[in-house]
């Protein structure tokens, strides 16, 4: 469209929003909200515009922009989009736009809230579009500080603890990732940070070197995904974060880890990917089953959804470790679907929390009578998250398991029990909240209002559409995934 650098536009549009917000006095809350909703809306429209320009069939990166940034060290501002990154920025733009509506329930320090909110969006979109490892790392770290403040200032009771825990976990991981990136830079033929060139010369790296670098990068990405032993920050961060922040945290931030594996670790270090595949599959298996088990024992609604994210992201790692086209499509699709479904679940938790001011599952009961529309929505998204066929959750879990079955038969058989336990704890949750006799305390609970319904309807449509006809998104993802598989040298 008349030669506009679309990708840089979508990355830095929220920065424009922040600048505008600076000049609005703190008192005019409605204008602040208006500006931020407008910014996120325009960003979302931009992502649709990019889709218009994006030719799904052609593999490789499109709409590339390259400017030299630090010539001495051959670092350049290099952004590009392909099927994989496009689906992620679409998800980010959509969730940011919807969560912006949910942010209207924030009452104090609204101006600072939206400044951090937009800063977060810049970091997220930037991470998915960066094709230069240095740029990727910078955007990766940019998301840390705003999320720290979002959890820290507007969070729940133990917000400081959760905020600093989130920050230090991710920082520790990303710092080792930096070492890995630097080592890659110094061992590439003409020292380069560009992902495309590194992939091109991925056969040059010796095997031992690949394993070390893979371990360093793994440490950074695994904390974000989160993979089993590094997941303890997630429940705290989710429980204490305000609703819109936890929507973005679960919807997008977790995907940056997975995206890192797909975009950087696997194509650049194929031998190490094959070498570590069984270990990652085992961690995935533990993640799925263990996450589901712990979710079963929760009494806090948000903590349960947090642990369910650990379990769902376990499928992503299983699909990733399977190293075959079905597993890869399943894993990536699971990241996208999990973003939408868990985003919606957190919005619903927010709706309930704004009215009932408690998240204790046992405090509810029989709400179906009082709030039928809310319970309809909750049932729909809970079924999506337990992988009911006809909804998007099923397709990706099915493909990940199918892919996993081919590569690691025993691990997949055990992780299939995971979906049974998932059904268990989700139905147990529905039973405690919606079914059974009405808890008299909630007799006067207010029904979900139109604003909240509007935030959920797009997610509902997407979940249904992708469940019934997944070709829509798989055609976008397939060229990118096939390229990565070719880079790894797996027979497509």
């Amino acid at each position, binding site marked *: 469209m008349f030669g506009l650098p679309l990708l840089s536009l979508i990355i830095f549009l929220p920065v424009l929003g922040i600048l505008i917000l600076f000049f609005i006095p703190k008192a005019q809350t409605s204008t602040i909200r208006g500006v931020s909703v407008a910014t996120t809306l325009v960003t979302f429209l931009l992502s649709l515009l990019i889709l218009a320009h994006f030719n799904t069939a052609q593999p490789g990166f499109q709409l590339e922009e390259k400017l030299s*940034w*630090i*010539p*001495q*060290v051959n670092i350049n501002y290099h952004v590009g989009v392909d099927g994989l990154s496009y689906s992620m920025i679409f998800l980010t733009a959509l969730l940011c736009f919807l969560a912006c509506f949910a942010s209207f329930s924030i009452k104090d*320090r609204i101006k*600072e809230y939206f400044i951090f909110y937009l800063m977060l969006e810049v970091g997220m979109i930037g991470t998915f579009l960066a094709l230069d490892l*240095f740029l990727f*790392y*910078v955007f990766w*770290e*940019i998301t*840390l*500080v705003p999320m*720290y*403040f979002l959890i*820290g*200032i507007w969070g729940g009771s133990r*917000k*400081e603890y959760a*905020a*600093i825990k989130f*920050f*230090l976990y991710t*920082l*520790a991981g990303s*710092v*080792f990732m*930096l*070492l890995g990136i*630097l*080592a890659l*830079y*110094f061992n590439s033929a003409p020292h380069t940070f560009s992902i495309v060139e590194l992939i091109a010369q991925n056969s040059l790296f010796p095997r031992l070197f690949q394993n070390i670098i893979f371990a360093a990068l793994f440490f950074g990405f695994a904390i974000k995904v989160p993979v089993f032993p590094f997941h303890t920050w997630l429940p705290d961060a989710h429980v204490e974060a305000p609703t819109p922040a936890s929507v973005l945290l679960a919807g997008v931030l977790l995907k940056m880890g997975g995206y890192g594996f797909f975009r950087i670790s696997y194509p650049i270090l194929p031998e190490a990917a094959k070498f570590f595949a069984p270990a990652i599959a085992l961690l995935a298996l533990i993640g799925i089953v263990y996450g589901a088990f712990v979710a079963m024992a929760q009494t806090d609604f948000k903590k349960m959804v947090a642990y369910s994210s650990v379990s769902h992201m376990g499928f992503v790692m299983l699909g990733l470790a399977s190293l075959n086209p079905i597993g890869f499509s399943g894993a990536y699709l699971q990241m996208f679907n999990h973003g939408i479904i868990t985003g919606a679940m957190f919005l619903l938790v927010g709706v309930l929390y704004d009215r009932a001011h408690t998240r204790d599952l046992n405090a509810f009961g029989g709400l179906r009578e009082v709030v039928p529309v809310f319970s309809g929505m909750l049932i729909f998204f809970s079924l999506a998250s337990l992988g009911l066929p006809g909804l998007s959750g099923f397709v990706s879990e099915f493909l990940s398991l199918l892919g996993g079955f081919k590569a690691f038969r025993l691990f997949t058989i055990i992780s299939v029990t995971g979906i049974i336990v998932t059904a268990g704890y989700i139905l147990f949750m529905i039973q405690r909240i919606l079914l059974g006799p009405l808890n008299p305390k909630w007799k006067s609970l207010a029904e979900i209002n139109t604003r909240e319904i509007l935030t959920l309807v797009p997610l509902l449509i997407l979940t249904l559409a992708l469940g019934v006809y997944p070709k829509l998104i798989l055609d976008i993802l397939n060229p990118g995934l096939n390229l990565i598989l070719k880079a790894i040298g797996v027979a497509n």
Partner: protein
Amino acid sequence: MNVAPFIADIKYILPEIILTIAALVILIFSVLIKNKRALAYFSLASLGITLLYVSKTPVITTSLFSGMLVNDSFAAFFKIISIIIALAVILISLEYKEISPNYRGEFYCFILLATTAIMFMGAASNLLMIYLGVEFLSLISYIIAAYWRGNVKSSESGLKYFLIGTACSITMLYGISLLYGLTGSLDLEQINAILYGNTSQPAAISIIILTILIGLGFKIAMVPVHFWCPDVYEGAPTPVTAFFSVGPKIAGFAVLLRFLLTGSIFFYEHWAHLLGILAIITMVVGNLTALSQTNIKRLLAYSSIAHAGYALIGLVIGTHIGQVSLFVYLLTYTVMNLGAFAVVIAVSNKIKSDEIKDYAGLSLHSPYLAAALAVFLLSLAGIPPLAGFIGKFYIFSAAIEEGFITLAIAAVINSVIAAYYYFIVIKTMYLEKPQAKIEIKPAPSLNFALIIALILTLAIGIYPQPILDFVIHTSSIFIP
């Protein structure tokens, strides 16, 4: 001994001369006229002129005064930095209430003299000149450390700084005398030539050089000689602490660099491994003790020790890439630290306390100051799009390129630990409820310095290109 060549060399040290004359003029006028602000503006003007002069004159590498000083891009780099530091310090101390008005005059004079001392240290290439430069700077530092007359802490910090400082410099002197005895010359190049050939007993020579290192290490607060740092930083008036955390530290690195890389190459191969360990210990000590600090000046003191540790890595690497990363790190460190201290001064001017818990809820009432401090602290922690990250990035890449993996990993872990205590301050400012309603309006001059520091931190972070060209050009003089 004809004097002619020396007169020719005078024009090379013109900046130092201008500043000394300006200092003397200020000293005289401080007695005569009442309006101390005029003196401040005069000193700023003189610094401005010297800065213009230095940046304009093309650098011709010659040795001056028969080897005492050397005029090269390395020295020019330190001239420029020291003048910038002096400008910043004077700007942020204009409204500083603790220094009583009638002593302001001498204060500016001392700052100018200290700048000349740093310039000399930057250019010294002879052990005598190094000793004189170090002593000159130390004396001025002892005075301005104890400058807050009535305050108990300030005089205690002055005493501590004096006693420990003199002890260390005397050890250095003793070491110089032994080295002189061994090589028969005081000129760094000659010493290096003599020692490089016949290292008969490397151990004995290394001990001598170690004693010299103690003297130099004292200035940059390296591990064994860092004990004075927290007490002096806490006691001295805050603008002085700001100066200490940046001025003498950079001068110390300048001398260390010149001494190690031209004076004793052989020493370097022999003892780089030791310096590496000292660097790691410095980082660890700096970061760990900072975790449980409650006074922000002490916290920034330990943080400056830790940053000295990171910079030491650049020194330990020693190759060209190592020096570039050292210079970049020092530059970014100067900007961030001065910015942070500017905010601390503004806050302590209003609420008269440096305890971290008094910073509670600062973001609610003076959001601009809190945001500025947060940016500086984040930059100190090395979070990207800020200058600190560029500094750390260079140090890590240099370490990895030259294969110092253990150093890199130690630095990386330390930066995570460091992030924690920087976040203690940010947490108190943003996440806690304020007791009193403190509305702080920084003085215009301090505000000006603050804005420049903020812009520089963001600019270096986002587009570090110009700074790198400047640094790489200056540090190209060393051979290895």
